[in-house]
């Protein structure tokens, strides 16, 4: 068997190469890195609507009245054009409501993207929901892994301070992610990415996968014309409107008067994810942005009379956070299990039926919260 290296010199060169690659993120100052907007304009459409996020974060300049930010739970859950229309009527002017969403949950991705958003646009109210540990998937509750996009979103020179206080494994995971992100960063140093053309979006991807239109045409939100299937996408979609349905007055905001309608499981959020979640609320406070935690329904809670959350988020996030939702017993009232499945395409993602049903129920509450005074 040949040795791994033909000479000590070769072994030394290999070690130096590894060291150089590993040190790249730490050595690369912000001046070496391309502008953060180039992160968004270089991600494939199949990884998420990042070119659309690029437009919303870096190109559009108008203040945002309400931004729904987070992963696919909220991406599929809210009919953003409807909310914008209702808010415009209320305000007597054209409101600006946007969905800033992407696939796969994680407070880390939410923090990095919210940071870019709030640094570039003034946002009055940020509505978030990203409990990726999923109340019906206990095996994911303990996961504390970086978001799949963290090699792009996390750049050591921009955000090294976020690693402070994290467990060593999390620090290593984010740092190695930053190492993987360096080739694209270094390439962008040599030449800028060509402008992302929204019109050249691979529309077939949205139609084929979710039976949906381009989210860039729906203020960022997306609907899925898919039927329910626990394991895979089911193209057999049936239009459905619940009959003995909930009313918008069933939606509630957590307060001493409504606390009986909420229950908090007490499962601790993994350490690094919690750290990012706290940074989000701190960031929002710094920018004068109200934060609302919106509970999105899932099939597994059908029959429950209370809105169940992993933690009492105001305490967990050390923030004056408003929590809103609809008690499941009211959301699903009058429905059989089969009826309920017509509102979802997988157990925790609303399809178009569910989005059309949920959004009008929650919108009046959101508009009230929009008017509520902001407590810094």
């Amino acid at each position: 068997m040949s040795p791994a290296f033909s000479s000590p010199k070769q072994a030394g060169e290999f070690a130096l190469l590894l060291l150089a690659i590993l040190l790249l993120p730490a050595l690369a100052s912000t001046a070496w890195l391309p502008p953060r907007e180039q992160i968004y304009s270089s991600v494939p459409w199949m990884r998420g609507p990042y070119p659309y996020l690029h437009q919303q974060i870096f190109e559009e300049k108008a203040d945002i009245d309400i931004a729904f930010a987070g992963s696919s739970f909220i991406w599929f859950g809210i009919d953003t054009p409807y909310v914008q229309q209702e808010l415009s009527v209320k305000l007597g002017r054209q409101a600006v409501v946007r969905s800033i969403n992407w696939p796969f949950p994680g407070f880390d991705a939410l923090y990095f993207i919210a940071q870019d958003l709030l640094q570039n646009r003034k946002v009055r109210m940020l509505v978030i929901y990203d409990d990726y540990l999923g109340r019906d998937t206990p095996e994911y509750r303990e996961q504390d892994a970086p978001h799949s996009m963290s090699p792009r979103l996390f750049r050591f020179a921009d955000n090294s301070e976020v690693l402070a206080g994290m467990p060593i494994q999390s620090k290593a995971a984010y740092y190695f992610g930053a190492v993987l992100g360096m080739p694209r960063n270094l390439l962008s140093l040599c030449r800028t990415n060509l402008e992302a053309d929204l019109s050249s979006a691979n529309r077939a991807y949205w139609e084929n996968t979710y039976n949906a239109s381009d989210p860039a045409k729906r203020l960022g939100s997306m609907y899925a014309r898919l039927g329910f299937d626990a394991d895979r996408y089911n193209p057999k979609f049936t239009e459905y409107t619940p009959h003995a349905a909930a009313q918008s007055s069933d939606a509630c905001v957590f307060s001493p008067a409504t606390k009986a309608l909420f229950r908090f499981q007490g499962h601790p959020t993994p350490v690094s994810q919690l750290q990012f979640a706290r940074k989000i609320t701190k960031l929002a406070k710094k920018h004068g942005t109200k934060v609302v935690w919106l509970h999105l329904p899932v099939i597994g809670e059908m029959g429950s009379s209370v809105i169940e959350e992993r933690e009492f988020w105001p305490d967990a996030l050390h923030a004056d956070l408003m929590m809103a939702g609809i008690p499941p017993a009211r959301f699903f009232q009058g429905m059989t299990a089969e009826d309920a499945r017509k509102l979802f395409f997988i157990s925790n993602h609303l399809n178009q039926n569910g989005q059309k049903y949920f959004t009008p129920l929650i919108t009046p509450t959101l508009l009230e919260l929009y008017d509520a005074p902001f407590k810094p």
Partner: protein
Amino acid sequence: MPVRFLIAGLVIYILASRFVLRRIKGVWREATFALLNMAGYYGLFVHGRDGRYGAVLTVYVPLICVQYAALRLFADGKGWKPLLAFFTPILALAFVRYVPASFYAGFKGSMRATLLKDPGFSIAPYFVGLSYLAFRASHLVLEVRNGVVAKPGFWSYLGFCMFAPTMAVGPINSFSNFRRGFDVAPPGIPIGRAMLRVLVGAVKFLFLGSFLNQITYSGLLLDDHLHHWIDLPVAAVCYYLYLYCNFSGFCDMAVGVAGLAGIPVPENFQEPFAARNVKDFWNRWHITLSQYMRDVVFSPLSKVLARQFGPANVNHAVALTIAVVFLLVGVWHGVGWNYAAFGGAHALGMVVNHYYAVGLKRWLGWEGFKAYNANRLIHAAAVAVTFSYVAASLFLFANTFSEMRTIFSVLR
């Protein structure tokens, strides 16, 4: 599979293999070693994966039995009989790879349901290592026919076919070399050297490969965005480097684990970036494949064609043989015209190099030719041209024709 279980499994496999090879004798050693490697195959390629991998295992072992029967019956026969033994594993490979799944969909209801969901479904990926098995098994027929080794017993044959460390990507080990691990005085493989090979291989495969893959064709150009034209050579170079780290890294791990288990395995890479022409490249890249094709295709075919073409045209006979060899190399790599094109590109490179060398020898004479080869400037230029040619040819290997069209459409 969690990493800790993988490492624990590898340690158990290595210790068990060394124990079996050193402490057990006779047919019990052969049978235990074979079963150990079947367990290794199961742990690496079946456990925790799609149920089809397990289902295919029930076909794999009978297939090996059929190949063994052909070997026993025909390998040392007269006339055409050894060809029957030789081609049995090759035909099995060709059948699995090229016959569409719809052919056998009629026999199994679940297969029909699978095809309805995914008409492009192929069963070939579930036969992990089948092509390397075909090479090993067919080469063994040659070794038996040529008297290099005696016909093996069944358990010995099964252990050779299912040797887990080299199952997935080789290197292609000959039976005679494999059996050196079973000798009374086996080759001494320093444990530290083998462990370092595994470590370096893991670093290349898991880290350097992933790092470079960020700006290869799939990582850079096929991202639905427009690109500067310069991204194409960047992706080409990075893909070549990524493929080297990925392939040679895995081979390093295979060689290292096999060495720790007590079985010698030949090298598959020898500084391919230093190749000064395409012929030299194939003496440095996937060396065991080159050696197999030389022994099995090039040597016999070139002799036949040389006899046919006559002494005056022996160079053309060699050129034609080279072209056939590399077209086969291309289509062996995958099902798709792009792979044939890749083989064609290397066939062209090899044939051009062949005639160039022939021409240079005639023009410069033998001493002049030696001086030409020793010239450092010419050597540097040749290495650069070869690197560029190989990197460019891998564009055909890495992308389907549809992806190639997409790439050219996004370049500005």
